């Protein structure tokens, strides 16, 4: 009896299960090409995974890049992130600084290409992947101070909030929408002001925003503050 209803009920049930899962997902999943931006071709296919990726778990002492990454800190190359609005692309000098001493990969095609630029005294024309619109003011320094210094989060985790899991990519690809709603979804949350091992900055350990954060700790015993949320903080 009612055998003919089996398939519709199954389909409706599946639809509801999937849609309720999607509704609980804090960040919308990225499905369209548009939300990820265009796939950008770089002049040299820079392997982020070789440089920043985790070491080979089977052989942690071996730093041979072919068997895993080298866990180089993001800020070793993107050195301006902690002290200016932009993270910066490292100058060619920085690449050569290490690579002139790494004989083992000297004849690999990408390194040969790199040294061609060096010999021609020309910078590598890297393309911008995370390109915000001109009317947006984003400051890397503030986010590094907030999450890496004050909250003592690992650099790769803090950078990954916006840049995704770069250590597993070769050429960096945009992983988040970088839309205003996406930025605001984080700014509206109350984050702890400091954490164990973090460095509080003066008596303004939080950004002053429209809603001034409570100086008293909440029920969990942590002082939390929202990100700034007035328009001119980000729009220029």
């Amino acid at each position, binding site marked *: 009896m009612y055998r003919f209803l089996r398939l519709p009920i199954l389909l409706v049930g599946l639809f509801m299960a999937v849609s309720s899962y999607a509704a609980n997902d804090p960040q919308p999943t990225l499905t369209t090409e548009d939300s990820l931006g265009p796939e950008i071709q770089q002049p040299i296919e820079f392997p982020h995974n070789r440089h920043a990726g985790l070491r080979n778990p089977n052989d942690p002492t071996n730093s041979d890049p072919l068997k895993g990454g080298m866990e180089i800190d993001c800020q070793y190359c993107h050195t301006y992130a902690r002290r200016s*609005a932009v993270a910066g692309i490292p100058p060619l000098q920085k690449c050569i600084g290490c690579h002139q001493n790494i004989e083992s990969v000297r004849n690999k095609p990408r390194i040969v290409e790199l040294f061609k630029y060096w010999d021609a005294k020309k910078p590598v024309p890297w393309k911008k992947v995370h390109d915000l619109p*001109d*009317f947006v*003011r984003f*400051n890397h*320094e*503030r986010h590094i*101070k907030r999450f890496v210094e004050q909250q003592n989060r690992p650099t790769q985790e803090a950078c990954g909030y916006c840049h995704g899991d770069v250590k597993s990519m070769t050429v960096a690809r945009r992983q988040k929408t970088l839309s*205003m*709603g996406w930025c*605001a*979804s984080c700014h*509206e949350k109350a984050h702890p002001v400091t954490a164990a091992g973090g460095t509080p*900055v*003066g*008596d*303004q350990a939080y*950004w*002053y*925003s*429209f*809603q*001034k954060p409570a100086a008293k700790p909440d029920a969990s015993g942590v002082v939390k503050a929202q990100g700034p*949320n*007035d*328009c*001119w*903080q980000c*729009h*220029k």
Partner: protein
Amino acid sequence: MSVSNLLENWSQFRHTHPVDDKPHDPYKWAMSIDLDACTGCNACSIACYAENNIPVVGKERFQHGQQMHWMRIERYWDEDGREFADQGAQFLPMMCQQCEAAPCETVCPVAATNHTADGLNSQVYNRCVGSRYCSANCPFKVRYFNWYDYPTDDAVWPAEMSQQLNPDVTVRSKGVMEKCTFCVQRLTAAKSVAKSEGRIVREGEVQTACQQSCPTGAISFGNLVNPESRVHKQWQAQQVEIDKDKQTKDEKEEGSELRGYRIFEDMRPYPSVMYLERVRESAV
């Protein structure tokens, strides 16, 4: 500011400033302009054009009332039958007064203009739909509308001229309203530096473009809640208080000897710019 945040906290964004439950802390940007020092040289206006990527619209569009000068010098003439009439000119630099209870904010249908925590009247170009209601409601007439798409107008920014645009300021497109921002891009940069050092912005650390270019130093700009700041001292010396629509000093029958006043104070926009009345008879 997402839409849900806007709707939930609507009453806060629509607060009449200044209010006791949200005192300005640690910043309230304010200005004072000494009209006695002002010579009407227009340097401030030019500096503003350069700093804020303002299009120079040309004679014809100016005559149509489509000028974009965020900072303009108003001229007033003494008509007392003097021999050289142009010696009787008085000047008044006029820009957005960053009103605490801004008439423009309450009428914007899309909340494109609202108040920031440090007492600025913000204008968000992306949110603006160009109804021009704010301009109609502004008693100072300091809001300017983009009637043309100036970035693509070859007469305004020819190819090589685009190199001199300020990258910290948006180049506005057709159909949005704009106005003086108190050089918010400089304020943001100064606040970020101060924040990293765990302090508030020091007096003199940040200047607006008009203040920087004024040859006679007529314009002072700073943090009104910082007792060390020049602006705070001037406002205090002139007994002008930001949250009053009628100053105590003016209640006396014989009036006040002090020069400080704010324009349209009795209309209760609570402007953030104080002018110091001119005392010189003329520059002769």
